[in-house]
């Protein structure tokens, strides 16, 4: 009801826990089961608690679990779940190889939100509008899920199951996302349309293209805010792989994108406007990624 809806007061009572290690966190999660919530940056969870959409009995903060933060380069790029959006956007390896992700992080509301928000929180919250989700999808990222007993790696394309819903099982914690090394000749881009910059997207799109000369050898396209989950565009991709990368081909693929998405009308945009700008920014992102792919260095 209106009178209870606000973003200042946390009305329901809860216990606040601060584990120092992942092992401690698993124990706490096991002890408090389904009524506990994990807290990373808090930019989503706290707002939801204030609005009473979430009423956990226990809030387990991951801020002191050091092993969850930071970015390491190996066979894959591993970004710890509690790494802030700001740190991701300023990371050397991200800047060098994952342009779409970096652009998504830079488009992530205001600096204060970027400093608080985390990459793990952004995808676990599973908002269809999460800025980093389309970027991670096109970079072919995987989610590393650990429980007290086991670790599993889930491709991000299989991770989201609905608005606010993921494949994370009770007792599991997302510890990192892993991004494979980009292939030679890769270019990527992220574009977002919102009413004002400090706002949730009306539509956002991320694109990865791999080119060999004038030929598109691989392609991934994902959009946010146009369906119940961040969406990968398989039809449009199918129309591009193996073809020459021409403005006409990209425009045709963007037309397919605009048909395949399932946007709704809400307070931020109409369905019609979402479809319209999806086509525009999908085409723009493809053109930009294509140009970047030509600029040599695997971007």
């Amino acid at each position: 009801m209106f009178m209870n809806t606000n973003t200042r007061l946390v009305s329901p009572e809860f216990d606040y826990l601060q584990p120092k290690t992942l092992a401690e966190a698993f124990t706490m999660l096991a002890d408090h089961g389904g009524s506990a919530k994990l807290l990373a940056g808090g930019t989503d969870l706290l707002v939801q608690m204030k609005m009473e959409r979430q009423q956990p009995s226990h809030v387990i903060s991951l801020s002191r679990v050091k092993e969850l933060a930071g970015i390491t380069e190996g066979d894959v790029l591993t970004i710890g779940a509690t790494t802030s959006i700001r740190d991701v956007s300023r990371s050397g390896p991200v800047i060098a190889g994952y342009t779409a992700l970096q652009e998504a992080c830079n488009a992530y509301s205001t600096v204060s939100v970027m400093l608080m928000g985390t990459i793990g929180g952004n995808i676990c919250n599973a908002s269809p509008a999460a800025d980093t989700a389309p970027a991670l999808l096109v970079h072919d990222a995987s989610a590393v899920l650990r429980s007290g007993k086991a670790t599993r790696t889930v491709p991000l394309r299989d991770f989201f199951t609905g608005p606010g819903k993921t494949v994370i099982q009770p007792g599991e914690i997302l510890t990192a996302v892993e991004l494979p090394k980009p292939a030679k000749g890769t270019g990527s881009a992220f574009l977002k349309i919102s009413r004002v910059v400090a706002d949730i997207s009306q539509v956002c799109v991320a694109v990865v293209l791999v080119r060999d000369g004038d030929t598109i050898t691989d392609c991934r396209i994902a959009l946010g805010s146009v369906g119940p989950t961040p969406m990968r565009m398989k039809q449009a991709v199918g129309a591009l792989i193996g073809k020459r990368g021409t403005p006409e081909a990209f425009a045709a693929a963007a037309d397919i994108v605009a048909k395949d998405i399932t946007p709704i009308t809400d307070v931020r945009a109409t369905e019609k406007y979402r479809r319209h700008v999806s086509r525009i920014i999908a085409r723009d992102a493809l053109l930009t990624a294509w140009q970047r792919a030509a600029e040599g260095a695997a971007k």
Partner: protein
Amino acid sequence: MQSTEFKTIGDASWRKDGIAKVTGSEKYAPDISVDRMWYGRVLRSPHAHARIVSVDTSAAEALGAVCLTYADVPHTRYNERIVSTPPCLYRDRTVVADKARHVGEALVGVAAPTEALAEKALRLIKIEYEVLEVITTMDQARKDGADPIHDTVLLDGVDKPIVNNVAVRRTIDVGDTVKGFAESDVIIERKYKTSRIYHAQMEPKSVVCRPEIDGGITVWASTQSIHNTRILLGQIYDLPLSKVNVKKVMLGGSFGSSIQMNSVTPICVGLALKSGHPVKIASTREEDMHDHVRYPSEITLKLGMKKDGTLIAGEMHAEIDIGAHNIQAYPFLGGFGGFWASLYKLPNMKYVGTAVYTNKTPSCAMQGFGAPQVHFAVESLMDEIAHEMGFDPIEFKLRQYVGLGGTFWGQGPASKCIIRSDGVPELLKTGSELIGWDKRQKSGSQTGRMRRGIGMARGFHTSGVGHAKASGAEMIDYSGAIVKLNEDGTVDLIQSLMDHGGGTNHAISKLVAEELGIPNHMVGISPCDTRTSLYDVTTHATRGIYAGGSAALRAAKVVKTQILEWAARVLDVLPESLVIEPDYELGQGVIYCPNLAERRMTVGELARYLHLNSLGTLSSSQSLRMVNCPPAYVSYYVEVEVDTETGQIHSRRAALGSDCGTVVNPALASGQLIGGLSKGQGYALTEDNQWDPKTGELASKGFWVDGKTPSISESPLVGDIATHFAHTYEPTGPFGAKGLGEAAKNPAAAAFANAVYNALGIRFYEIPITPEKVLAALAEQAAGKANKTGQATLKAPTPVAE
């Protein structure tokens, strides 16, 4: 007069409250805490229109909470903005309501030892509602048989019936419009629509009230006037004013939304009096967004002119959706007509303004009052006429604007004055050079995806509501100040005048320093309250420096005379032979006789001498009403870039000019202009509150992210915003100064709309100009349809240029 002739005025000095603000140590109303303090929350209506059948607070009280219902509060209606005099004051409010008239209407106050407990108790209150017809549009409100939102309101002690939900209507007639239109060669009529935006001030309305042992109260509140808050609380709770003390605390922004006593203030007082505890209410952002909005408008504007463009007749109909309460529709409608009449010379004009109640958040004053709405219509239409008839818009406007020697009545028919300073020609010339007006593309000639356009609009705001009449005023308008010389030569300035954040108090301290001839750091701005300060009506109508500064200057002049008289005795010269000038090395004001160089002493030395010889404190307490209300002219040139594929409009460059007379602090004045651009850009391009027509709920639910307020990210780059000032001197103002704050926003929407026209060749008659509207208009343009959306020219414009 050049500001360089001054010693203190005109420098870009750091404001006195700057360090406290940037370090976070400044205290605002929500930061105030006192011993034994409880916390209040407010139960608000989820229904837009409902009768209250019953209220059961027993479960809340069982938790230890104190509740304040309609049965607990005085039933005499009040108006929360007592700037207007009783014949102009429409009273329709009580502390908590007997009937829900909008979603978010305050129905029950709850206080408890903690905020969490208050919130818990609030949810145990049971209210039975009888839901009534929800009225969200003016058409619906005026339909015969529509549910009355108010049956009557109280006007000057008399119950005034409200018919068809029309709150108030005002008409102004000058000359003979029938004759004027008959003699016109060209008549053009357009309809304009402006939106209902949220103020988006940083501080949500907050208040602390401490009941005192003598039966009185001490109050710390977000307000633009501590004295009006005091008077109202005294009236509502039947307390002598000597027992109501309202403290001056820093205001965390307002944009006009605290011109009235905020709705939470009397609730907090009621809870404190009932519980016997100090109580604090800090509104949530969501409550705040349900509490106040800008007046929206639907304007029909018709202008008649000769072939050479000379305006001879005008007719304006303005319809204003005021929401659930009449906070100040009467002065608003007066100002609306006055702003229009003061823009361009119109020998014959007719104005009809109508304010209508609906079941929505009450509209109230916001930066510019009715001027941004009027400027949008008039400056859009003047631009259109100039283009249609082949005139240069700048020349066309300069030919006909109300300037030097003309009559200005920006705040309505009751406040008129002769214009004595006018920087308009300079503003328009400088602005056009800075933006590159002559290099702009022909309107509608571009074809690419990204199209740039330059738009211009001009205008003003008033400087206060001064007038010459001795009685019968529509509005109260006076300020007070106390200036006293301390025992070391420093000065205390005690003034209840509130600073919205633009630096008004700091600027006034500079006026005092200038007059006394001492460095500005020697003037302290005193904390004060209603007990220790003189009355000030409120910081509104861009009157802070002009009216409040004039009162302080009057007190400083008296103190200066006293200083010179005493110094003359000590130095054994005639007082007329002495001057005082700041000596920045000494950090003192130096009193000396230019003809006898050895006869000199510092103000500090004089102050010590007076103190040690028990000669008394030099001080003055002055109250002042201005008899003029000069226009604070402003010019806007903006450049936009329109993405014709996404429909987005980007603000790229701006040249903003102000004729504020003498510039007291160029850095802060420039900041006012840039702030006006930011607010104006939101008004023109993005912000628009929507209500569900069926339920009367705010579509954003009060979430600020859906308020679409632009931030610095939407602003042009700092280097692409030029600000400039006219070289004028207002003879009736303090050291030649007049107003600036509200003027800084007024022409913005028209400038943006005109810039979009220049980019696309499409006129927009409704703000905000959203991407969706741009795309729809481009599609119509591509289909070859007229872009005037069915708007007709009554007599065809005939281009006169051969």
